[in-house]
């Protein structure tokens, strides 16, 4: 087996486990858009409104049966970005409250997208985008990105293992240097692979 199971919905057997996973992708995408727009458009003072939206998302999360640790891990991964933006709010009058509201809004938006991406196979979302007349170049780029994310992840993991098996020093500096070379190598390999994929596409009549 080549790929990693990046999402809990990705059982590899095509079986959909929670009720939310069985809902049509188009409906879920529209629902997520409405939720995100509501969160963004609610004024800062409407904390009650935000809490209601939060309760709706919490309810959906419960129905989705996504393991809590899985969500928290992904949320923490994105948190530096949120902090980077929200942190700037501290420097204005009444910054503390604004910071809290922006943090709440951003995290609710993130939870909504996590909910969507963890209950909807990416391929279904792509099909919806195609049906919605999203430009083909955008859909193709997303399709290829999704397809080769797994290949690249596998490649990075193989390189990490190979590096670990010959890493005899515990020095942090060396580890960072080695990591930098792995990232560089990965970039070179990815661009070479991109060329081979393009060739394979041309060989089957890509215009």
């Amino acid at each position: 087996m080549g790929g990693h199971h990046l999402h809990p919905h990705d059982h590899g057997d095509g079986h959909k486990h929670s009720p939310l996973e069985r809902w049509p992708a188009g409906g879920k995408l529209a629902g997520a858009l409405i939720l995100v727009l509501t969160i963004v458009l609610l004024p800062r003072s409407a904390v009650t409104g935000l809490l209601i939206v939060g309760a709706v998302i919490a309810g959906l999360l419960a129905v989705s049966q996504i393991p809590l640790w899985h969500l928290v891990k992904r949320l923490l991964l994105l948190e530096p970005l949120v902090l980077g933006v929200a942190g700037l709010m501290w420097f204005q009058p009444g910054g503390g409250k604004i910071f809290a509201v922006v943090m709440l809004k951003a995290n609710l938006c993130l939870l909504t997208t996590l909910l969507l991406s963890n209950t909807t196979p990416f391929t279904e979302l792509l099909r919806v985008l195609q049906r919605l007349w999203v430009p083909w170049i955008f859909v193709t780029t997303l399709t290829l990105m999704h397809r080769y994310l797994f290949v690249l992840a596998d490649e990075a993991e193989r390189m990490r293992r190979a590096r670990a098996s010959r890493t005899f020093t515990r020095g942090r500096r060396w580890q960072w240097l080695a990591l930098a070379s792995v990232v560089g190598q990965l970039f070179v390999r990815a661009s070479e692979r991109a060329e081979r994929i393009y060739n394979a596409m041309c060989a089957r009549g890509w215009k």
Partner: protein
Amino acid sequence: MNAIEITDLKYRYRDGTEALRGISFRVLPGECIALLGPNGSGKSTLLLHLNGLLPEKLSGDGAVKIYGEPVAAKNLEQIRRQVGLVFQDPDDQLFCPTVAEDVAFGPQQLGLAETEIAARVKKSLAQVGLAGFEGRQTHHLSHGEKRRACLAGVMACEPAVLVLDEPTSDLDPRGRREFKAMLRTLPATKLIATHDLELAVELCARTIILDHGQIIADGRTVELLSDEKLMLAHGLERPHILHHLHPH
């Protein structure tokens, strides 16, 4: 008419490496030919020329002809319709999310009707023993299944010439056996670049040995592969299977 006709084909990579130094040979329709040679001998480079993927700027000089037509920019679509190329790394070739979408890619590019595309997908998947795999995600397939899916994607375009680059590398013995049995059933003209010498003996009546971008030998597979001196001189070896065919 020859299915493939190559006359004095030369190619030099941008870094100056001379990959092909005056290759010439002809392939008749229906032939199955093994292309042998050590790593870096120019096998893959040669295969890319058959599909017009190399050279970067097609001159249309007639060094490569497919069914009499020189490979040139103006008839590239027709050439690629006739020549199906199966790449060495299945992950390069399976670029769509699901098996059905990937197999349908070629027929879609040919501009076929939806019903015809669906029929071709079904037929080619059955041909390679992957019936029922339509909805499977390509990155979740085993290596052997990926190989088969690649072949199905090419077969769906119904090419007259099938060009395969190391089709059995990384396959386990059973996978190799099954893949060879399947290849035998395909009616197209086949040119197979491989290090699998048993495949050459079992499937290909004719073999071309390539080294340093030149044709070293072109003849009957059993005769060439029995020549131990020739084999060893070009990074190859006499396969064990020949001991069974010609016991001492």
